């Protein structure tokens, strides 16, 4: 018993203690804030349900983007920093299609066809961008020191942002309204915004399709093999470069679809829209355990919920003014906390402290 204690004492370094102190005080603060908020009764049950559903909708968008990060990390062991721009490029391009259809009343008369066209354009553009980014910026750098592809990715990210700014202008474009998505649906006495329901359902369907593709098809199996061990996969006759490209293509498709959902929900697109969601989705991927697809999905939804419930729950009770301004700070604090205490993420197992 005593020996065990002694061993434990040897294992704990001062940095661990400092880390636990930082983490513990943050948790304590959040707990205190939540209790204070709940006791003050600032929000009714209705509010909390609204927060939850909004969080679920936003989280499912994050989850879709996060799958792209996580799959690319799986095969290349690098963070595709430009993934946020892949997410932006699709809906930004599709905006012009949507606006044209809106002007000619096509969108009102054939909403489903119009929506299909928007998704098709957005997903095609995002996929192409993802494919070419990999081909031009990452492929020549296989085997380079780790810092180099990361810097390239940052460069690619800014290049794409300002490319689209130059092409389409720096203004914020308002996505046209779709009448079928306006208003509420009443479900068990709770009024829910239609668009949020649509976003959640669409995202869940897409994620199921993606997961099915990865788990059930031959190509998905090959991708999983490449992310386990590139060399062994190559020996088994799998085209590693081909699978990496495929991964980027799938990630791009998911990001493009997520982008349209985002645009439909927030009704605006601009060249910088990919940056913050990209960071959040990365956070989500880390939360779930990077390299793990269901983990990324769960992480995204969890992050969306924390972000929408968190400011009111944790911060309002502490007497902080305008807590909603701090929602991004909460998300990034979550990221830092996860990286400290559970770098392998919620569902992660493959990634130990060695790689984190």
């Amino acid at each position, binding site marked *: 018993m005593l020996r065990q204690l002694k061993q434990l004492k040897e294992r704990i370094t001062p940095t661990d203690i400092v880390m636990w102190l930082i983490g513990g005080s943050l948790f304590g603060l959040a707990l205190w804030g939540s209790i204070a908020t709940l006791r003050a009764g600032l929000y009714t049950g209705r509010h909390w349900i609204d927060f939850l559903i909004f969080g679920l909708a936003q989280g499912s968008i994050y989850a879709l983007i996060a799958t792209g990060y996580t799959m690319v990390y799986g095969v290349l062991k690098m963070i595709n920093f430009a993934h946020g721009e892949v997410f932006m490029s699709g809906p930004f391009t599709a905006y012009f299609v949507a606006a044209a259809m809106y002007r000619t009343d096509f969108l009102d008369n054939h909403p489903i066809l119009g929506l299909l066209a928007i998704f098709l354009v957005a997903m095609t553009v995002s996929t192409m961008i993802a494919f070419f980014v990999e081909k031009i910026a990452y492929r020549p750098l296989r085997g380079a*020191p780790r810092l180099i592809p990361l810097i390239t990715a940052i460069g690619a990210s800014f290049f794409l942002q300002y490319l689209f700014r130059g092409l389409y202008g720096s203004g914020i474009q308002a996505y046209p309204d779709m009448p079928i998505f306006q208003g509420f649906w009443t479900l068990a006495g709770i009024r829910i915004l239609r668009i949020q329901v649509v976003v959640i359902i669409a995202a869940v369907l897409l994620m199921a399709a993606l997961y099915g593709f990865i788990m059930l098809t031959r190509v998905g199996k090959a991708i999983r093999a490449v992310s386990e061990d590139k060399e062994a996969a190559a020996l088994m006759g799998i085209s590693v470069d081909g699978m990496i490209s495929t991964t980027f293509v799938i990630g791009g498709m998911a990001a493009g679809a997520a982008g349209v959902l985002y645009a439909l929900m927030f009704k605006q697109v601009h060249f910088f829209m990919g940056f913050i969601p990209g960071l959040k989705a990365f956070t989500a991927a880390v939360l779930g355990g990077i390299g793990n697809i269901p983990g990324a999905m769960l992480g995204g939804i969890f992050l969306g919920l924390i972000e929408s419930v968190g400011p009111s729950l944790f911060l309002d009770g502490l007497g902080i003014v305008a807590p909603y*301004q701090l929602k991004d700070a909460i998300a990034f604090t979550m990221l830092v906390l996860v990286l400290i205490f559970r770098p392998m993420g919620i569902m992660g197992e493959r990634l130990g*402290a060695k790689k984190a």
Partner: protein
Amino acid sequence: MTLAQSLWHHGAKTGVIGGITVLVIALVGMVESFNKRFIVADVMTMGIALVIVVAVLIAYNAAKRAASSDYPVVFANSLLAALITSGFLAMLVIIGNRINLRSVLVNASPVLYMVLTGGFEGAAGIFVILIAGGLSGVFAGILYLMPQLARQVAIVSLGSVLIAGLLQDLIRPILSAWGPLAVVSEWLFTQNGLTITGTILILLIIAATFTIWSLKRENIKTGYGHFPDGAQRNIKICAFIALAIFLIVLPQILGLFLSEVLTIVGLYILLGLGLNIVVGYAGMLDLGYVAFFAIGAYTTAVLTSPELGFFSLTFWQALPFAVALGILSGIILGVPVLKMRGDYLAIATLGFGEIIRILVLSDFLKPWLGGAQGAGKIPNPVVAGYQIAGPQHIYYLILAGCLLVVFISLRLRDSRLGRAWMAMREDEDVAQAMGINLVATKLLAFATGAGFSALSGAIFVSKIGSVYPHSFNVMISINVICLIIVGGIGSIPGVIVGAAALVGLPELLREFAEYRLFVYGAVLVAMMLLRPEGLWPEARHKLELRKDENDVADAQTETAA
């Protein structure tokens, strides 16, 4: 079959890449907005020069890829590439004149088409584009087939004309500040662009000097080697003194506007040197570096600004607090990210930077930090009863800061700690096995970098006299990372070169400012693909990168064998 294929293959492929490149450059709006600045007055604008330079580069590349000893093959390839490149632009003009592209592509304006066609309309304009493309191709082909010396002379002298034209705002005030040289300036420059005589003069002078220099270079170098050691040292001391005098009188020569540019470059050099320790020496990619800049700036503001009204210290009293708080926050950030490497570290620090910016911007901290409106009335530093105000004086403060930081960086690099950092950069596990205390070493790197950053933050707010949260966005971190990488990771002169190129140039070329990040992004990618060691590389790092490449090449040849 093979001959025919080699005739068109490389040219066509490169040409399509070139066509897409010029299309992007044109549609992003660079051509049109660069068109306001003349390189040679009334003859050649910067926008046109940009397109032509790209076309020539593409055609040259096609010629190089053809790599044939047959002159016609080389020529055909460069011509084809340039024609395809210009063909893309011609298509743009043809389509653009029929359909209004502007509702989608904001920069596809009739003005752009006029610029591209050189003012001609209809079919004549298309011919102008194609002829210009053809001429670029012919020129590139000739350039490729020239003997090496002649090619170098041509590139250097033409490049000098371009640079003289681009930097006219820098050169003209310097020349006209001094009586006798003002005449030269009138000779060379008009209000916008070089004169024709000036162009020819620069071409001839540079060509002549460069020819002589490249023929005699070896003689001069061996001549210098033959000097006795004492004389060599004297020459070095003289050069050093000349540099010192140059640095001291620089703001007087440059005048107010250029001194302002100089102070901005100086601040970025300070930031770059600090981050260079974290990224360059210790090999930890920190994307939240702006956080420490903000902490230094806000600490100074809170301590000195009467508008916030807590303290009213002087700049010098506040400075130690700002730097100390910067160092402290460097350690506080350092602890949680100690175990992270590479990508994770980058994202965690990026998140940290965003947290600081969001906090500073929030209404929650408004009573203390001023919220979105920031705070003003921050006093200028006072030295010996003399107030340092205006860029020409702040320059000396920044210069002093830079010299101090350069000195510390140099001494640190050669110290035991510096070697520990570099060992850690190369391989963390091996470094630890060699007895390096990773925790202390990493924290010291973070703390030193953060201290430098806080120092520049403090100087920054006292320079502009106010502080706004929007000055501290993630772009600052990215700019600093870019300048380090472009200059050469870990290299101190590289930081200076990088800052001058990436911060100084856009300030001089105002039209460029809008495309700054566009170009940075492209430059970062291109740099990593073509020259990962940077413009002025550090010896060890270059060795490492090149060695890796050789290893990869070896491995590839092995597998191929």
